[in-house]
């Protein structure tokens, strides 16, 4: 029923604009400061070794988009293989864990059922679905359902696929995340979280773009200037001016939450 109402909403939109809206018309690097487009399904791929980077990137995207509260669904297999979620660590990424609800499900089928319910809940900002391994049930049909639900309810859905290879899906965008060497701090200490991001696919946009970014927890943005030149250590203060950035971020937060 929700699917059909979403379909009607889409058809209406097409009728009014005269053209199917493909993609969201945002700039390619809008995600750096505003996170991913809201009310859509996005996929984030990471290898098993980069699981924490994938999860970290997903959490950071939620924060950049200011899309709390978050429901995080994981399977028991994820809990066994990847370790459990550490709230203190999430707080240190910048997340307010009091707004986080964790759902632990037995298997992939339950994961999709729970996701279908959560995707319809208007009260949520982001639904994060974490799956490990190939997860063949998360296919074109399942992703299309999630995408329609997201468009109808306004919930942003991030599907975190760890140890999986991309398969055809209805997601609005598809990302691959890997860890990347951070800019070390004084005394050779590891620095802020750094990611190697590849945009594999984006509906109505350019694909195959790559970034090396650093997560700036205090400003809630991804900082790509940190690695602007080849020698990272030579550019200690090369971030985007913080004040300008904050203004942009505030704009994003003030805009209407539901896009569709």
């Amino acid at each position, binding site marked *: 029923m929700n699917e059909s109402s979403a379909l009607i909403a889409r058809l209406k939109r097409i009728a009014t604009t005269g053209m199917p809206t493909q993609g969201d018309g945002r700039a390619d690097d809008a995600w750096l400061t505003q996170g991913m487009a809201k009310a859509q399904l996005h996929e984030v791929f990471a290898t098993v070794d*980069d699981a924490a980077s994938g999860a970290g990137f997903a959490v950071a995207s939620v924060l950049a988009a200011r899309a709390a509260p978050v429901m995080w669904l994981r399977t028991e297999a994820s809990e066994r293989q990847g370790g*459990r979620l*550490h709230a203190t*660590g999430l*707080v240190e990424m910048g997340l307010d864990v009091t707004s986080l609800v964790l759902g*632990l499900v037995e298997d992939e089928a339950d994961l999709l059922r729970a996701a279908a319910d959560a995707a319809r809940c208007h009260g949520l900002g982001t639904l994060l679905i974490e799956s490990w391994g190939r997860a063949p049930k998360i296919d074109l049909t399942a992703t299309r359902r999630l995408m329609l639900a997201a468009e109808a309810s306004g919930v942003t859905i991030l599907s975190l696929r760890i140890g999986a290879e991309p398969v055809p899906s209805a997601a609005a965008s598809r990302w691959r995340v890997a860890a990347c060497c951070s800019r070390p701090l004084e005394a*050779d200490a*590891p620095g*802020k979280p750094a990611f190697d991001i590849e945009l594999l696919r984006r509906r109505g946009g350019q694909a195959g773009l790559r970034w090396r970014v650093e997560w700036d927890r205090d400003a809630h943005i991804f900082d790509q200037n940190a690695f602007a030149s080849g020698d990272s250590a030579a550019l200690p203060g090369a971030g985007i001016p913080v004040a300008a950035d904050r203004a942009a971020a505030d704009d994003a937060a003030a805009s209407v939450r539901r896009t569709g």
Partner: protein
Amino acid sequence: MRPHLFVGRAETPIAFVETVSGGVRLKALDREAVRAGLQPGLTLADARARVPELEVYEHDAHADHEWLERLADGCQRYTPSVALDEPDGLILDIAGCVHEFEGERRLAADLEERLARRGLLVRHAFGDTPDTARALARYAGAPAPDEKRAVKRLPVAALGLDEDATTALSRAGLKTVGDVMARPLATIAARFGEEAAMMIRRLDGSVKEPIVARRTVPKIGVERRFAEPIARTEYALEVIAELAAEAAEQLAQRHEGGRRWEVRLFRADGLVQRLRIETGQPIRDVALLMRLFRERIDSLADPLDPGFGYDLVRLDVALAERLDASQLKLEGGEAQKGEVAQLVDQLGTRLGRARVRRFSARDSHIPEQAELMLPAAEAPAPTPWTAPEAGEPPLRPIYLFDPPQPIESMMAEVPDGPPHRFRWRRTVHDVAHSEGPERIAGEWWRRQDIPTRDYYRIEDRRGRRFWIFRHGLYSEMEAPRWYLHGVFA
């Protein structure tokens, strides 16, 4: 008891046996076996010699008890207070409950008919007190015009005394309860104990012992009876929705919402199916309730089976709490929170309450004990978390292994320093950057022998960040082991 074995098989003698010291003995018999001359207590070998075609089953007291519980559940269609009279009796308090059946005899007939369909043979009796009813049902005396005299004509065994006392009473020429009652109570008490005197007083009605009902009467209960059983689950759900609306109305008048709801579907053949839901917040929204009930039905191991149909549906609110009419904030703040709470209830009903969780901070410096994951439906008010210091990278991992995973440390430049290279998950990691140690001591005020942990935040050459620790100091032990406790983003 396995009643389905008996339905329509009246001609085979059946016995239940029990292994007691010294051999296998008969415990219970069916009518046919009794007719063949067997009696409880006989050894199985003797019984087989007398009745070769005897069918034998292991006696299972626990299953008997469960069966009796299920029958008791079924009898709640007649009255809310039903007590078990182990091992094979039920006591129903039907005072004020017979109007549905135009008299107690019709009620008993209805009950007997239902149980007969399950293959049970029932003996019933009415009494002014639970004890007289029990005695009259269990023991047969000579016919009598009224209850008082019927009790008096019961054999002395009805007093429920031990075997010696019963034999002694008979030897003394006291054959019936009435004979015993005619004696002064003091003599009976002196000879047979306080218990015997008490039992007599309970049987003559001078002491009334109330029955201990199996369930407490719920705050709100609504029900629907059907002359013609309803066989479709869908229709049953509509009925539940109507009942929920009635209950919600009553709750609204009391400014309350239910937190524990139970629907019982009474099948025409005496079985009862239960659907229970619990919510984190008190609710009285019928649509939401129905969604939760549907969720519960979907998650049942055995799907709802109407069988011959349901002839009674009852909905109880076992726990209610204050719930005032809520006002929606314009910005949607409250409404938004409510929706997430509904989602938590919905998922909790399907997956189990413990699977939907929230984090709660705890006062401990041991990393794995510093936080709790509580069922979201009952989590306490959120506790503030310590905000991280600006400009610092995250000092705690986002995934934590519990228990920590052992790693093989290949080299450390100095014994007390971080490892140079280590092996984890069959991969060798070369350490590029590291910070530490952050020393976390065990809770020495609880236990003395917990080694200190030295934590290091490290990054390997490919940019993966790990949280590892050495379990114990070199001064504490000879060769402390290394563990990987978590991974950073």
